[in-house]
């Protein structure tokens, strides 16, 4: 398999409307999570990271009419626009568009507003983005639960490796909607306070919304200091459709397969960006899989304490932050971590620190028993 180079990127989240603002917030330890009072979503207050729509509209006005697009579309369009601004000569007729999301415009199910019913379809979301910028190829839409955003990168690499794609935009986004809030509530999975990944007092997830975009290419950029995706794998647990595997089997196998493709060993991984949703069973499962993979000493963090769980966007955002972490040789702390609350020892990053990072590993897991591992290399 060829390498996939991770080029320019953008993140639109409660932490800021650019990658730079997001990284600054993470560096300063700021979180986008707060107690929300949103009767249109749910009657009781809840912890989540939600984007304020009025500054979003203000920014969006520079590129389009905010009334003609849904909130999620505006977030995703803004992210793509930022990356395009840095690449004005990109030929969009030859650039693939990979859109990743779990629920897209699902908020329209309760209240479609002025939007036609078909706008709820994920294929329409792809079309809106493609038409807005003039992408000529049919958008590739990935909806594979909470690994979607990272899987989008693997999809680009896999299609690129057989010559079907040269450059691609991978775009991810999901909302905090009444739909997902009531769903995770019915699962008794929502934390009463900001989520605490891997901590012994963790008590469930916090939801978050965000969008991100990344330009990727099979061609190696001329400049040095690049991050490339060099190994990827997804493996299903074949165990339960919502409960994480007790043995971490699918995640363990994903890591093994992704590493095998790169011919590097677990010991060479300098940093691990975990999924870390802060549910009791997910974090426990990850600790088992990491331990089985001999990654117990590798510095790791979960970004859920900053963003909450941004579902289909999470693994893309976390890959972007990993990329910058590697380029800056800098480890960001795992927010809201107190004391280790999983059965296997892990090296949770408790303070920001400088560290040479040549190889990074990004993992994610999701409903349906899916797991993903991506190995990134600095060249």
């Amino acid at each position, binding site marked *: *398999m060829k390498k996939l180079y991770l080029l320019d990127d953008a993140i639109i989240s409660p932490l800021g409307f650019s990658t730079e603002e997001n990284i600054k917030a993470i560096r300063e330890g700021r979180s986008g999570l707060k107690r929300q009072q949103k009767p249109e979503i749910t009657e009781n207050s809840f912890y989540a990271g939600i984007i304020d729509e009025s500054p979003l509209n203000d920014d969006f006005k520079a590129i389009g009419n905010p009334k003609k697009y849904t909130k999620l579309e505006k977030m995703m369009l803004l992210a793509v626009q930022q990356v395009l601004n840095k690449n004005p000569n990109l030929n969009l007729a030859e650039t693939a568009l990979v859109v990743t999301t779990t*629920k897209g415009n699902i908020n329209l199910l309760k209240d479609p507003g002025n939007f036609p019913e078909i706008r709820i379809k994920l294929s329409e979301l792809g079309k809106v983005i493609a038409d807005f910028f003039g992408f000529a190829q049919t958008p590739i839409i990935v909806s594979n*639960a909470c690994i979607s955003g990272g899987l989008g990168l693997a999809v680009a690499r896999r299609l690129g490796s057989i010559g079907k794609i040269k450059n691609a935009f991978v775009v991810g986004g999901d909302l905090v909607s009444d739909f997902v809030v*009531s769903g995770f*509530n019915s699962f008794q999975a929502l934390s009463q306070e900001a989520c605490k990944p891997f901590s012994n007092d963790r008590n469930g997830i916090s939801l978050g919304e965000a969008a991100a975009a990344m330009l990727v290419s099979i061609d190696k950029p001329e400049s040095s200091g690049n991050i490339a995706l060099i190994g990827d794998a*997804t493996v299903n647990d074949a165990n339960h459709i919502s409960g994480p595997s007790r043995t971490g089997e699918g995640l363990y*196998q994903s890591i093994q397969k992704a590493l095998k493709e790169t011919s590097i060993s677990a010991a060479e991984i300098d940093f691990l960006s975990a999924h870390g949703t802060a549910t009791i069973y997910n974090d426990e499962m990850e600790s088992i899989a990491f331990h089985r993979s001999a990654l117990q000493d590798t510095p790791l963090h979960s970004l859920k304490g900053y963003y909450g769980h941004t579902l289909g966007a999470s693994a893309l955002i976390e890959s972007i932050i990993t990329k910058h972490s590697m380029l800056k040789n800098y480890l960001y702390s795992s927010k809201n971590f107190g004391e280790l609350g999983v059965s296997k020892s892990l090296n949770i990053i408790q303070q920001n620190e400088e560290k040479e990072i040549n190889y990074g590993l990004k993992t994610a897991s999701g*409903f349906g*028993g899916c797991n993903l591992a991506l190995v990134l290399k600095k060249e």
Partner: protein
Amino acid sequence: MQKDFSIKDWVKIKDGKISNSKNEIFNSSEKNLDVFLKSVYDFLELKYPKFHKMDGLSKLGILGTEILFRENSFSTDTALIFSNNSSSLETDRQFQESTKTFASPALFVYTLPNIILGEISIKFKLQSENAFFIAESFNAELLKNYSESLLTSGKTSEVLCGWLNLENGEYDVFLCLISSEINIPFSEESLKNLYFAEND
């Protein structure tokens, strides 16, 4: 790297009819989806209590896969590459309705299209590659390219790929088992021909 792959077998479920590469397997005029699905379950003499807990999309996927895997050997690393247009919208609507009174966790868990990949993995013990794509209509090109990439790179030795759509009670299922065994050549053209062929 150019290695040829074949469509070992396929299955179609549409308008009450089920067929595979050899013949028509089942034909029913039943319009009610749940009743139809239960009649196929009984016809196949499936003994799988979990089936009754699944949503329509998952039931369709399990039935289609069961038919393919009964007649064909398959490897435990068989990748699952599915696509559709409606995602899990059928169950999304039911879940949204339930939130007006008591949000149902058993419905919520099926509000992702890739849940069927988990159900198939569990039933047939496949710890393998998964991807679920959404497209406006049957996208033979993407299914072929993505499958080919996994097969030629050695990420998998066989692929179960296809279309699994359910919207407003109307279903359209077309699944193919792809391997290196010789049969129908695996190409965008042959996928299209099979998918668009009349059910007769």
